[in-house]
């Protein structure tokens, strides 16, 4: 009986192809929008999580200056190498500390030149940033101590300066210094904000301070906490230590900033999730509108087919059989719309993921939920018209022209 009813419903839907298609369109767009939004949102969340994990696990960044609004300059003193050493020595559950100073510099090799960011730091930098060397070696202790003219290149700098040539052992010029390339960093690609993480040159901190910056300042201290250690506790300890070292009186605000990347990751993914939920609910409203469209068309259909309903009732159809017939028709209509919406969503999310450079993460859960909802909308919005059909008086219905 139910199989028959479904066949009958499909025949009825095909009879009014154009109208059925337009009715379904509401559901198609609704389901498609919900799945696409949630899929893209999920992809963005995954991307942010991956990137922050790629930045270094348990990473804390210590920068000088107050928490200021946009455009406000900070006048707080910079760090010295001693500050980094103090953190490494005095705070337990710290795995590695890397002081870093950076500046934008033009790198030259033969006829090729490329403006990039030169960072002076130590070997701990590779550890806290989760970087590994594609080729070559890290700095030796004597190079670090003596401030030797050696450098390690990021992939982008290598490509821009050397093209397909061999790199190791060559020398490039960074402003006034000529340094030997001793290593090559593994490529990390772009961040979600579009920053190229491979556009870097790393040199020993002392080399940077003496021959590029000309001072002892450090702009950034990167700290990685031990596995299983609470980054929150490490953050508090760094704050206490830094206030002491920088002589910040208890009544003053910090003149430095400790950023816990885990916290930032949590905040960012939280924001993305809220945004995804918001977009998803806006899309869900269009699904609801699609449902109202189905109700509208089913009501028209019941009116148009009053005579047919009369015939069926006169022949001996029960109320619930007529109800079922129209209900099934609405559900088949909305489910077909749901299926088409799923196909549409698959296509549009793959395309959008490509355009927005977000990984495409297939979310079977939301696809199932969206399809279930499209069928449920058929039941909810098809019920009233179906009930109207079933409750018709057969005598009146047969007289209907």
């Amino acid at each position, binding site marked *: 009986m139910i199989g028959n009813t479904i066949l009958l419903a499909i025949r009825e839907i095909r009879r009014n192809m154009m109208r059925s298609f337009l009715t379904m369109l509401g559901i198609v767009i609704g389901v498609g929008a919900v799945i696409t939004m949630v899929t893209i949102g999920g992809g963005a969340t995954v991307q942010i999580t991956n990137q922050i994990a790629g930045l270094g696990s348990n990473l804390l960044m210590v920068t000088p200056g107050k928490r200021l609004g946009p455009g406000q300059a900070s006048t707080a003193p910079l760090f010295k190498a001693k500050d980094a050493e103090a953190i490494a020595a005095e705070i337990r559950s710290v795995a590695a500390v890397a002081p870093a100073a950076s500046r934008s510099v033009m790198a030259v090799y033969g006829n090729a030149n490329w403006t990039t960011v030169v960072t002076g730091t130590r070997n701990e930098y590779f550890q806290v940033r989760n970087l590994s060397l594609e080729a070559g070696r890290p700095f030796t202790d004597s190079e670090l101590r003596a401030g030797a003219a050696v450098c390690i290149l990021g992939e982008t700098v290598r490509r821009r300066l050397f093209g397909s040539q061999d790199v190791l052992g060559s020398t490039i010029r960074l402003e006034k210094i000529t340094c030997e390339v001793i290593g090559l960093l593994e490529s990390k690609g772009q961040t979600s904000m579009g920053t190229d993480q491979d556009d870097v040159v790393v040199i020993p901190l002392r080399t940077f301070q003496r021959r590029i910056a000309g001072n002892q300042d450090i702009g950034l201290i990167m700290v990685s906490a031990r596995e299983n250690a609470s980054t929150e506790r490490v953050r508090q300890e760094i704050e206490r230590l830094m206030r002491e070292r920088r002589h910040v009186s208890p009544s003053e605000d910090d003149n430095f900033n400790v950023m816990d990347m885990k916290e930032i990751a949590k905040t960012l993914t939280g924001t993305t999730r809220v945004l995804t939920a918001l977009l998803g609910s806006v899309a869900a409203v269009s699904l609801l509108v699609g449902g109202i469209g189905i109700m509208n068309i089913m009501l028209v259909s019941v009116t148009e087919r009053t005579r047919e309903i009369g*015939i069926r009732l006169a*022949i*001996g*159809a*029960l*109320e619930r059989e007529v109800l079922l017939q129209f209900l099934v028709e609405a559900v088949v209509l909305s489910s077909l719309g749901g299926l088409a919406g799923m196909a549409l969503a698959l296509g549009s999310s793959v395309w959008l993921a490509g355009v927005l450079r977000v990984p495409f993460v297939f979310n079977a859960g939301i696809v199932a939920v969206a399809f279930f909802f499209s069928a449920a909308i058929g039941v909810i919005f098809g019920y009233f018209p179906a009930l109207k059909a079933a409750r018709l008086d057969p*005598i009146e219905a*047969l007289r209907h022209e």
Partner: protein
Amino acid sequence: MKTGNPEPANHPSESPLIVFKGVTKVYGEGQGAVEALRGIDLIINEGEFLAVMGPSGSGKSTFLNILGCLDSPTAGSYRFKGVEVSGLTRNQRALLRRHYQGFVFQGFNLLNRTTALENVELPLVYRGAPTGERRARALQALETVGLGGWETHTPGELSGGQQQRVAIARAIVTGPAMLLADEPTGNLDTARSREIMELLIDLNRRGGITIVMITHERDMAAYARRTVLFMDGLVDSDEHNGRGTR
């Protein structure tokens, strides 16, 4: 003449299929109330062929609707095969129609854009008959009404007479105890009307189906063995005519 207890003569069976006792039907309430039936007493035996006549507004359509369980009497008793119908629910009445009654209408009332075969199959679908049996019985019914070979045609491709034959096939496909016909020849020319009447007589005689037919044409009523005349919601006369057996 109001007939309280008609004496059916020369009928194949004497058991009453239908017993109406003091059946009234009132539409509306209070001042605007209309009495369509004002107390009908009637017995119809199995195997009868009854014509119902009367001017418009005499209550004959209301009578047929109640007879066909499409409507319930306001008061009085209607027994079908010994079962009191007055107190039945809508669904119970639907089941009664499904299993014991067939309808033929003036306007044919076939499903458009649906083949003759599917139209005839429809009552069997609601009976839950399996596809194979449904098909066989529907083809058989179409054969009976002389439409063998027309099963794939839709109502739009058939003449009026043929459409009414399809409607009759649909009404008899379940093998009902009673066939109710509401002006079955109202939309047909004389020749086509005769053919339909011959078909009904054949079904009545050979199939043993009880037929109650509304008509306003004396010629058509003459095919029936018994003619009941309605007037102002009452049975005005109830005659057995010899011509019906011609």
